[in-house]
């Protein structure tokens, strides 16, 4: 009896406590319907050769959520001219400029601040910490960027430029225009009275 109790006490004291880390997948005691015969988002699937169950976008096809207005989508008017201002449709979609700018500020903070910095002067955390001096982005506060048409700023976000990656896969169309609006506001804020 005593031996059994000691063994039980020992076994309990040897067993791990809650919250210990493990690289082994969690044990699921109740398994009913835990794994159902369907693919979750990003789950591997056996049908396609790349092993993805979720399919990447097929070129030359139009997805339902894609922007159909080419000017809004590309920032280009016709084939080669950038639009000068944010398309009115986009502003209406935000129900006015203040909402667009607020959204732009929010999105700028997520996608742009890491490199361009909160002021748009190129003093972001990433160029600084990565130690690669050459990737410091140019400031927004010079005449070259100030004179850029809105469509060109938009197209830069959409397609990337030099070291800057394209953001069309993770920033939706209207958010990109909102960021353009906020960049303009940033530039105005740094114009010291001129």
């Amino acid at each position, binding site marked *: 009896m005593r031996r059994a109790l000691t063994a039980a006490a020992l076994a309990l004291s040897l067993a791990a406590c809650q919250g210990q880390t493990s*690289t082994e*997948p969690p044990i*699921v005691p109740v398994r009913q319907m*835990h794994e159902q015969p*369907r693919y979750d988002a*990003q789950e591997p699937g056996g049908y396609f050769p790349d092993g993805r169950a979720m399919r990447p976008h097929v070129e030359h096809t139009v997805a339902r959520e894609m922007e159909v207005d080419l000017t809004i989508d590309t920032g280009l008017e016709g084939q080669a001219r950038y639009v000068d201002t944010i398309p009115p449709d986009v502003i209406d979609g935000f129900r006015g400029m203040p909402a667009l700018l607020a959204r732009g500020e929010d999105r700028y903070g997520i996608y742009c601040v890491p490199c361009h910095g909160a002021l748009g002067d190129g003093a972001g955390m990433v160029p600084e910490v990565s130690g*690669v001096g050459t990737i410091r982005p140019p400031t927004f506060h010079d005449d070259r960027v100030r004179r850029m048409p809105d469509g060109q700023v938009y197209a830069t976000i959409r397609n990337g430029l030099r070291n800057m*990656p394209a953001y069309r896969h993770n920033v*939706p169309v209207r958010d990109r225009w909102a960021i353009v609006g906020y960049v303009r506001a940033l530039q105005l804020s740094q114009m010291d009275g001129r």
Partner: protein
Amino acid sequence: MQIFPKSLNFLPLVTALGVAVGGGIATFVVVYYFSPRFLYVGYEPEQPVAYSHRLHAGQLGIDCRYCHANVERSFEAMVPPTQTCMGCHAVVRTDSARLAPVRESWESGMPVSWIRVHNVPDHVFFDHSVHLSAGVGCVTCHGRVDRMEVVSIAEPLSMGWCLDCHRDPEPHLRPVSRVTDMTWTREQATDAERAEMAALLARATPPENCSGCHR
């Protein structure tokens, strides 16, 4: 006629004691060890790429949504595509050995086989976008990811744990602009933020019925 001799009179007492002690131990073992707090919390699989959230989200201060860009629009936060990694790493640390699988994936078009860490059962339909717009922050369920070298499950993600918050959401709400802020606390809320939280609470309708999360 007596079946049991008097010397066995101790048996009922010992049996009762045994049932009480044994039952107590069994209850403890089930409650403590069969619970998600023991089975789920602390799961940190070794990923194919030694990606550090502590560096990217903590030190560099990159917002969660830079990579988990769908989190406000869909059920799933999703692991970012290789394209997001290569956006920066086509320029930064281009010869790092740790990044070799990412570059390989970029060249071949095959996905990096990340291992999913936070995974609720298939009969649970958790929607990230709804929680973010209701003012529930990342840190509430995922813990201090900005301090994690390797992502580890911080909370039990069990039904009881979900319901704790669904029944009393107030202490877990934050302004929508702070959902990805890992260091924000309710004590440091400004007046405007307090007003926003009150508004969020007033319109919060966290379901407590089965079909809220199970379909």
